[in-house]
């Protein structure tokens, strides 16, 4: 059998002897089990080992970060920007913000990136990560404009794996809208990212991730975070167009009155597979979490939602909600859900709902009797179904931009 991967630690730069040893140790741990398969409960619906074996051979770690051409920036609204090439910080322009309020630096060492290894991909990440970025917003500062991260992937990435680790910290009473915008050439690669998010007291962090056009990328992202008193975390996952995407969010609501929102609307087409896996840990009273996942599945697209709400015994007055809805347009498409509740406190309001099915025939009939063609009627209903998520974005210009990008995708059907 051909070798699936050959990872080379020699060319990975190390900041210290300890780091080199750490990398070796983690690589060994990874090699014991390889990529996770469906035997692992967390990967039950996304057999990564199978998917990678099917699509890749001779995977090596990427060491090339040359920007090939100028990145097309979004012109729809004013924003600060950061350019990452293959996951590494290349340039930035935080022109709209006060000096010293937004701290941005490239991360090169993994030693100060502390997270509990929780799966095999974290071992791989610790072994091969070349860093990423470190973003920090100072106390009592509200960013005037959103920051867009242009995540550029070059054309030379075939059969490469990129490993990154990022850190985002919002200090007390700060506010940030961060948009991750993936742009890439047509190369086929794997990206394995670990991100640490810390949101202090009264801070608000909105994170939106979108994909410019169809990509051959296979993405895995693990976000682990903690939230302070009265803080808010909102994550919008709108990355339609990736071959594979699994986003894993592990959020700790550590202090009272904090809230966490995970919202997603995805349109999955041929050969596309996306999974959102969340674990929201309600550790203190009076916290709120809200998850709403909407998928439209065409051709043989596969959508997965594995959400878990954990409520500790002291976390009374918790309000937690999970909703997953899927529109299945083709018999080859598939939607799998596992909305899980683990509750140890009695005075709580926890509920979940999950539906999957086809487009409402009555609604189509209604539109067609009013002279709208079948294909147009379907598109209209799909648009309405996905657009609901954007209602949670108060910034009008961003909302319009997102609506337009969804519309472009729907028009392609």
């Amino acid at each position, binding site marked *: 059998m051909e070798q699936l991967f050959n990872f080379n630690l020699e060319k990975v730069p190390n900041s210290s002897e300890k780091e080199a040893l750490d990398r070796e140790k983690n690589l060994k741990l990874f090699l014991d089990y390889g990529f996770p398969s469906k035997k692992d409960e967390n990967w039950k619906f996304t057999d990564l080992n199978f998917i990678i074996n099917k699509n890749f051979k001779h995977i090596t770690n990427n060491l090339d970060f040359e920007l090939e051409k100028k990145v097309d920036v979004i012109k729809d609204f004013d924003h600060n920007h950061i350019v990452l090439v293959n996951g590494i910080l290349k340039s930035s322009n935080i022109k709209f913000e006060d000096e010293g309020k937004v701290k941005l630096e490239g991360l090169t060492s993994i030693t100060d990136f502390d997270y509990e290894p929780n799966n095999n991909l974290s071992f791989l990440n610790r072994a091969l990560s070349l860093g990423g970025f470190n973003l920090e917003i100072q106390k009592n500062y509200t960013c005037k404009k959103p920051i867009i991260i242009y995540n550029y992937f070059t054309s030379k990435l075939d059969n490469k794996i990129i490993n990154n680790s990022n850190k985002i910290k919002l200090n007390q009473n700060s506010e940030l809208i961060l948009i991750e915008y993936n742009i890439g050439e047509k190369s086929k690669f794997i990206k394995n990212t670990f991100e640490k998010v810390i949101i202090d007291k009264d801070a608000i962090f909105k994170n939106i991730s979108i994909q410019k056009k169809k990509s051959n990328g296979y993405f895995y992202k693990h976000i682990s975070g903690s939230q302070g008193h009265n803080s808010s975390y909102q994550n919008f996952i709108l990355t339609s167009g990736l071959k594979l995407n699994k986003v894993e969010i592990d959020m700790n609501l550590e202090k009272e009155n904090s809230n966490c929102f995970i919202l997603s609307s995805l349109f999955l087409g041929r050969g596309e597979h996306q999974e959102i896996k969340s674990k929201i840990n309600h550790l203190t009273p009076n916290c709120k979490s809200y998850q709403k996942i909407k998928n439209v599945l065409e051709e043989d697209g596969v959508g997965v939602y594995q959400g878990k709400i954990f409520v500790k015994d002291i976390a009374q007055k918790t309000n937690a909600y999970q909703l997953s809805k899927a529109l299945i347009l*083709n*018999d080859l498409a598939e939607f799998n859900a596992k909305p899980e509740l*683990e*509750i140890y*406190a009695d005075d709580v309001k926890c509920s979940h*709902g999950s539906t999957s099915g*086809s487009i409402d025939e009555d609604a189509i009939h209604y539109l067609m009797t009013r002279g709208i063609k079948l294909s147009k009627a379907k598109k209209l209903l799909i648009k309405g179904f996905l657009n609901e998520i954007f209602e949670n974005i108060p910034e009008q210009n961003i909302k319009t931009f997102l609506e337009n990008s969804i519309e472009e995708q729907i028009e392609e059907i």
Partner: protein
Amino acid sequence: MKKEEFKHQEYKYGFTTDIENIKAPKGLTEETIKFISKIKKEPEWMLNWRLKAFNRLKVLKEPNWQKPKYPKINYQDLYYYSAPKSMKDKPKSLDDVDPKLIETYKKLGIPLNEQKRLSGVAVDAVFDSVSVATTFKEELTKKGIIFCPISEAIQKHPDLVKKYLGSVIPISDHYFATLNSAVFTDGSFVYIPPNTRCPMELSTYFRINASETGQFERTLIIADKGSYVSYLEGCTAPMRDENQLHAANVELVALDDAEIKYSTVQNWYPGDKDGVGGIYNFVTKRGACRGKNSKISWTQVETGSAITWKYPSCILQGDNSVGEFYSIAITNNHQKADTGTKMIHLGKNTKSKIISKGISAGKADNTYRGLVDIGSKAFNSRNYTQCDSLLMGNKCGAHTVPYIKNKNSSSTIEHEATTSKINEDQLFYCNQRGLNQEEAVSLIVNGFCKEVLQQLPMEFAVEAQKLVSISLEGSVG
């Protein structure tokens, strides 16, 4: 009822009956299996079937993914066969049955004797490992209905048993199912001939009496074309300090246009207030809707056992077949329940409905775990799932783990779940009208469970309602 009286009600089935027992040698060996097979006077094919399961068991591992963890069971330290001595030569009529046994059943309130004939329930009572007596045989025989202990069916109706035994739960299924296939001792066998409506509810009562025994019964129900049967199952066990294992297999087969309704009131001994003792109830129940327009409906009230771990499932193979699952699981003190269902849609236009009510009090843990799987050829299928959990106090847990898979664009799955506590306003309202805290809770909980209780046959509904109140005794205030 006064509070004091209520306390005495804790576990009224906790008595033991002094009856001499014949036991198989301790331990899980080929000898034990041969012993069981011999004492049951089984034909050779049955022994081979058991040994095949036993060989399979050697390579299987005990599952460990479930929420309630339990100390390792020493399978070599158990008796796999225990029968009241007087049963060695089977009684010809009720008069021949050991009066002590009859006394036990009287305590249990089983309508075994003639006086209770009016209630119209045909009973097959399984005491430890053997079927004691099956009532109403004549009347059933007239209609061509076979209702007998499975050991008898193996001898008298080998073709039916050969054809259907293990066809829903294969011998290599999972650890406890395979264990049961190897060592099962007795259980009920039901066959309803075509176009027959069983004129009465069929019922089995299971009781574990002897200590250090496991109970491994096997039930097989076949509803032939166009037939209907309603089957009731009840369980009790004496109070003991050690944990006892109960690993049963229940297989249902519904052919074209047939309907099976299977109701369980499970009240095994749950262990004492500190979680000492109690039954490990690891049961595999599965029904196959083989024919077109067939229907299987599971109703369960789970109030007993230290650990309940079971998922009565429906395999909806026939077109237009229907699967239903109604469940109440109540856990108090240190009890743990991990229960739910699997609805596997394979045929066209198949429908399933799941209503699950979990109530958790004391230091208990209650998990709903279920699967709804709509295959790519199950066009126009539908599922509706509702799981509600009620928590009493903040030392218990309520969990919901549904797996939902849809591979079909013309099928619809709806799932909702809620977790809450007893509404303070409702409690206040009841208190105001003179009900004390305990009565009020019992009333509200019964209301919470109503949708499921309604599904139970009359005989069981009254008992189940009482059980619901008793199980929650001492959990409030």
